[in-house]
């Protein structure tokens, strides 16, 4: 079996907050990430697919098709957006790396055959891997 990974980039703003908590508790738990004016990241998304090599093409999967699917299903909704305000999923879910991964997985898994894992880098020192 072979895995292939394609990287994508998107830039978005967010802040962390639990609306059921006081401002003090949000600040204590989330620190500077709780600033309601938001802050931003250049996210790096790695989409990993697995499968066998198609003998006619030499491909596990046509990455042009993968790119179009990811752009349409994920990037158009997230890139250059305010995640808390512009993306309905994050009206009720804190836009942490973990929840962004869960959102992206739910979008891609039904339409991307062979999806094995997604990896989301929030900063060069911090990333999350997600698979169901």
């Amino acid at each position, binding site marked *: 079996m072979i895995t292939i990974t394609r990287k994508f980039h998107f830039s978005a703003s967010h802040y962390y907050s639990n609306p059921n908590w006081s401002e003090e508790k949000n600040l204590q738990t989330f620190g500077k990430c709780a600033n309601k004016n938001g802050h931003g990241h250049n996210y790096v998304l790695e989409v990993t697919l697995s499968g066998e090599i198609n003998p006619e093409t030499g491909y596990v999967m046509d990455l042009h098709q993968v790119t179009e699917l990811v752009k349409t299903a994920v990037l158009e909704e997230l890139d250059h957006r305010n995640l808390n305000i512009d993306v309905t999923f994050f009206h009720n879910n804190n836009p942490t790396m*973990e929840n962004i991964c869960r959102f992206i997985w739910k979008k891609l898994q039904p339409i991307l055959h062979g999806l094995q894992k997604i990896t989301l880098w929030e900063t060069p020192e911090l*990333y999350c891997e997600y698979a169901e």
Partner: protein
Amino acid sequence: MIKLTKIYTFSSAHRVFNPSWSEEKNLEVFGKCSHKNGHGHNYTLEVTVSGDTIDPETGFLISLSEIDNAVNDQIIELFDHKNINIQIPHFQHTIPSAENILTFCWKQLKPHLPQLQRLTLHETINNKFTYSDSGKTLTQ
């Protein structure tokens, strides 16, 4: 399954040699890594924790400060800006190869970070070593 990785760095000196061997044999086996006065690296340590549940109240798998506290207390403070052979007691009788450093870091960290699933130590930009829950040390 969700895995979260945070990356830390520390700068240390070490000398890779077997004190039971002659200088010639050390040079033959370890090459320039056995030079008598030691050498150093900027090590990079990737700490990966795993779990199945995102806390619905925070959106976190685990609080990052929990990882920071464990790693800083159990590893960074011991290693950063230190001479591994001289200043860390464990390595006074264990060769401070990347494999042995990685195994030591796992044993230090795991009791304080039960969700620890994988450690990857980059000794240089060309060499990295991974220790995971199955207990195997892999050279990559």
